[in-house]
């Protein structure tokens, strides 16, 4: 840890401890996102700080016996540090963007609270350029978001009209909502699906309609994935498919998560993908026309070729009747 980060923390720690006299070491450490050991070291430094002159009466007073004994913190003699340092532009913008991201999946009440919090933060941040960055989230309509928030809050089952991407059709299903999240710019609902009898993730912009039912959600024995690893964790067991993408299709390797990418002569790219659903690959290959070619495994491109042949046969029939 740099001393700069420590200085920054100490300048917040002093006013915090003044406001929370007798706070437990463990609670303070948790609030500041540090270990109790780091907090103990911080207190050791603070204890040596104070008014110029540095006679014992000038120093910040911390009851170290209480820290090491009962594990609580009493700090006094720091009347000049009653307020934390103002937010830097970096801190203000990081927090504002985080709130704006939350706003995109929130229901009406949380959204109103977010707007109020944003206004207060922007006022407190003064001249910080909070307009210098934005995050766009592909989310649900306002109506659908309100319905999801209501069902989550009241613990009610949802009736969803959902356009599945891979099967390419509209489905109706009952689900018990568990959480709403944003990953890589898209909002999702994670829920127990009664139709699939398992945990499913629904992209918010593909939820065409949602209504809250009177049924309460049931307890389900499921473990929600840790999202900090992105999609990688949930796709780790899917088979690998290697595809050669010509220059005009090279964007695919940027758009979808890849395991490896290699640029070859002329700007084409060889990329390997984890394919959880063969229908996704078929759809992708059809879209890209001839600009993508499956290298391995054998047969991974057959479904797309067969679908193309079926479509061409239908066009031939159309021409015959025209």
């Amino acid at each position, binding site marked *: 840890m740099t001393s700069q980060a420590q200085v920054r923390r*100490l300048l917040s720690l002093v006013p915090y401890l003044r406001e929370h006299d007798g706070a437990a070491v463990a609670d303070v450490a948790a609030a500041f996102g540090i270990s109790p050991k780091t907090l103990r070291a911080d207190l050791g430094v603070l204890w040596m700080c104070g008014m110029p002159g540095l006679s014992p009466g000038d120093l910040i007073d911390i009851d170290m016996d209480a820290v090491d004994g009962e594990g609580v913190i009493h700090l006094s003699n720091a009347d000049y540090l009653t307020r934390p340092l103002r*937010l830097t532009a970096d801190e203000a913008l990081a927090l504002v963007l985080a709130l704006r991201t939350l706003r995109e999946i929130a229901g009406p009440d949380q959204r109103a609270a977010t707007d109020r919090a944003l206004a207060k933060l922007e006022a407190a941040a003064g001249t910080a350029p909070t307009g210098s960055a934005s995050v766009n989230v592909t989310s649900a309509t306002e109506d659908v978001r309100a319905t999801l928030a209501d069902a989550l809050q009241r613990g009610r089952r949802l009736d969803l009209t959902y*356009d599945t991407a891979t099967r390419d059709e509209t489905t109706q299903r009952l689900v018990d909502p568990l959480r709403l999240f944003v990953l890589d710019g898209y909002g999702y609902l994670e829920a127990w699906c009664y139709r699939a009898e398992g945990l499913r993730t629904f992209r918010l912009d593909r939820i065409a309609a949602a209504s809250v039912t009177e049924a309460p959600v049931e307890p389900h024995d499921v473990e929600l994935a840790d999202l900090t690893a992105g999609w990688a964790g949930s796709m780790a067991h899917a088979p690998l498919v290697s595809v050669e993408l010509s220059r005009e299709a090279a964007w695919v390797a940027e758009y979808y998560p890849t395991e490896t990418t290699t640029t070859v002569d002329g700007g084409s790219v060889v990329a390997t993908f984890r394919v959880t659903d063969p229908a996704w690959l078929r759809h992708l290959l059809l*879209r890209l026309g001839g600009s993508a070619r499956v290298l391995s495994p054998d047969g991974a491109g057959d479904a797309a070729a067969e679908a193309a042949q079926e479509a061409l046969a239908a066009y031939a029939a159309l021409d015959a009747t025209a």
Partner: protein
Amino acid sequence: MAPRKTERIVNLTIALLVAGRYLPKSRIRELVEGYHGLTDAAFERTFERDKDELRALGVPIEVGGFDPLFEDEAGYRILPSEFSLPPIELDAEEASVVGVAARVWQHASMAESTQSAMAKLRAAGVEPDPSALAALEPSVQATEAAFGPLWTAVLERVRVRFTYRDQSVRTLEPWGMTSRRGRWYVVGRDVDRDATRMFKLSRISDLPAAVSRPGAFDAPEGLDLRALAASLDPREPTAEALLAVRPGKAPSLTRRGRRAEVLPDLAWPADGYEGWWVGYGSLPGMAEEVAGHGADVLVVEPADLRAGVVDRLRAVAGRAPVEAR
């Protein structure tokens, strides 16, 4: 030793905060114990570095008040009103959304910035309840290597130079950054072209380097990043296609279309298909989208779109190892 250094910088901060007037450098040297025992040169170096570190943290150190008793010597002070976070009071609901926001960034240094902002808010009396809104997990990723340097450059208004798409070196005055579909873009004035440009961070092939001092330019007033980013969306429809769609299939197309009530004088749609009018802005883009649906969606008209789809299908069908039937 790091703790000694932290101690010295905190003591310097307190000394400048409580002085109530400009303190000459020589007086600071006496007051702050950490400067005792240093040679003149070592003191100068250390004091300059300490000031830089405090300014980097956002501590407003003012210079002025040349004291006649200390000829030409600059004085320093920190005004408590400039130092302190203005009062901010959040109700329970507001505090809980801020608590959720604290976990949003999945990028090490941005997460650290949020953490430090939260520490200040807590010190100002905000008490977020981490258990409220537990079912909400918004997140922002920034995996592009260029993100960190560009973020700093935007905030400090520093001109940057980078290589784009492995071929051209660009010099940019970065005005702002925007994320769309999980990918980051930087917007600004391309200095060599003297034009507004947007760059996708994943296509920057080196680390952007600062090539000016901070504050080298001003971003335009009322910069609307959302509007600029909207130019990345598909174009507004300019034409309409008549499609034959298998019932219930391809909702992504039919949701933005309308059922064809009256069909052209054709023996179409054939059995098992419905007619839909769907607008599109780009012919190649629409051909790509329709081809993706295989035999579930067929183009009845216009002919050029149909030809585009058929070409794509032929290219894919030719890849079959054996004739399917």
